[in-house]
């Protein structure tokens, strides 16, 4: 019997055995994968796949992460060694887009800050003046599936939506009804900047001190993608000094954030527990999708969530 190791302790096991019935595997949860009988390893964003995985599981043929982002999987190295890498995409696009709009509207209207202000005995004048949502400019970096849904909702709220994507031609963006701008223009002109690119070598610290300085001093930054897209220390400096007006982050360099996470001390910051993906319907979908994909792979079919190559989403 071959083994499938699940590294995520929270993985719901209901229905897993049924989905894999007849495929000659047993599924086990473990905090590390090891053994010649391990054919597949599944994980979650909180658990990274080690670079030396094959030294411990020489016969592993499939590695999966039950998330859209796959920066926790050394895709290039594993692919080079003949391992198929899968992720799950599309199960929570609408949820993430809605959460981004929730954070965008809450930043522009100052909701969280004003709530704290009233609780501290304040009333008027407002320490953070609410701004119009309609007519504010929403700058979307990365115009993939989620970026496009964010754009559509921003437009429904009558925001001026602009987008930058190094891989989406200007013409294609215009056909979807949105303005394509270069990254400099997007950062310099937007009221709210939101990130929707995968974390890759090219995008790590995409938002650094120089990029933050390009933003308006009354602008907000939203990150529901991956923490590594932002130079965390530079964001803290920018918030403390007032280089930008505020930020909302759903992702941290270490998740869950340790008690000494410095971001919890930064001013004008909304923090979220990596919850943008969540809705009751979306909460089980990635696990079910990935197990179904594992079954496909074990039957010799091509998985739907195949990571074609590092960098493609």
């Amino acid at each position: 019997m071959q083994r499938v190791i699940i590294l995520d302790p929270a993985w719901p096991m209901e229905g897993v055995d049924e989905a894999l019935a007849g495929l000659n595997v047993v599924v086990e949860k473990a905090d590390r994968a090891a053994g010649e009988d391990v054919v597949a390893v599944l994980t979650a964003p909180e658990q990274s796949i080690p670079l030396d995985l094959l030294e411990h599981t020489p016969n592993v043929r499939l590695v999966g992460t039950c998330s859209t982002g796959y920066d926790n999987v050394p895709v290039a190295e594993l692919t080079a060694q003949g391992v198929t890498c899968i992720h799950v995409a599309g199960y929570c696009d609408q949820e993430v887009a809605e959460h981004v709009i929730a954070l965008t509207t809450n930043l522009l209207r100052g909701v969280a800050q004003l709530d704290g202000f009233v609780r501290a005995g304040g009333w008027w004048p407002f320490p953070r003046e609410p701004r119009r949502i309609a007519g504010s400019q929403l700058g979307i970096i990365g115009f993939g599936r989620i970026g496009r849904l964010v754009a559509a909702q921003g437009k429904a709220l009558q925001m001026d939506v602009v987008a930058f994507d190094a891989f989406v031609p200007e013409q294609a963006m215009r056909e979807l009804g949105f303005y394509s701008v270069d990254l400099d223009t997007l950062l310099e002109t937007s009221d709210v900047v939101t990130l929707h690119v995968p974390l890759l070598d090219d995008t790590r610290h995409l938002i650094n001190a120089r990029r933050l300085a390009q933003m308006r001093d009354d602008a907000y930054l939203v990150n529901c993608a991956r923490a590594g897209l932002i130079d965390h220390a530079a964001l803290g400096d920018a918030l403390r000094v007032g280089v930008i007006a505020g930020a909302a982050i759903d992702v941290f360099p270490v998740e869950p954030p340790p008690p000494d996470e410095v971001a919890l001390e930064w001013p004008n910051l909304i923090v979220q527990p990596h919850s943008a993906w969540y809705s009751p319907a979306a909460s089980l979908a990635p696990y079910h999708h990935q197990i179904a994909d594992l079954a496909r792979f074990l039957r010799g079919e091509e998985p739907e969530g195949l990571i074609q190559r590092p960098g493609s989403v």
Partner: protein
Amino acid sequence: MRVVVIDDTWPLDRARAILEPAGVTVEFNPDISGDDVVAILTYPGGAVRVDALEKAPNLRVIGTCSTGFDHLDVDALAERGVWCCRVTHFCDVEVVDHTMALIYAVLRGVVMLDGLVREGTWWPYPRAPRPVRGSLLGVVGFGAIGRGLVETASAVGMEVLVASAHAAPNEVAAAGGRLVPLDELLSSVDVVSLMTSVTEQTRGMFDAAALNKMRSDAYFVNTARAALVDHQALGEAIASGRIAGAALDVLPVEPAPPGEPTLAWPNTIVQPHAAWYSAESDRRSFDDAAEDVARVLRGEDPVSGILRPH
């Protein structure tokens, strides 16, 4: 002739620019007394009752820089020949925006999750985010702001029910909503949003009986007026879990006094009467009120007079 401004935040420069051409002087003064006082400029915290005429017998017009006018004795003042003018539509966009922000906040759990992360909680979420698209929004009232909210909420994919004594089904449908009886709205929706003014009929209408009709996972959003709501009943409904929570931009006493009970309720977002605000609407609220007062002083009808004096 004097115009007395009893709101110490009112920008007097702009009030003077608008009113002095009508032959009056403008001053800030908490005391409205004087035979020469012809107009008062006020705000929701500055009540003007009919006894104002005992101090200012020649009062002709009161302008408030607010849409709500429950701080003015409109009927009694009109009977005594005084125009009460409010400002309308100066912040329609802002109130719709802020209400949408609060709807997103409660459905996605934004404010509560922020607090939970700061307390060291991560997963599972004690307050699970819910979808916005496909969720049901109930809008009570269908004036200009209510209509705007219906249009915006349906544009982001919410299903919108409307309860209104005045609206016609086809105009609600044209905005993207569906007109239903209030009871049906209350028992169906994920979020109830109040968009009606305080009248004899609506005062205290959200009492224990009304709140009991709501779903146990529903949120109550009030960016209209606190007097629409029995707050003791609302607090009990939230504390006992009969509804999921609330977002309140209006409180029974404003500013919230120390010990305001609302601040101790669980799952409740509290705002400092901020839904109306943007830099643009702030300017318009003062200027529109002053301009209507100037119209009355020039002998013209105001644009936003509440009740014609008789």
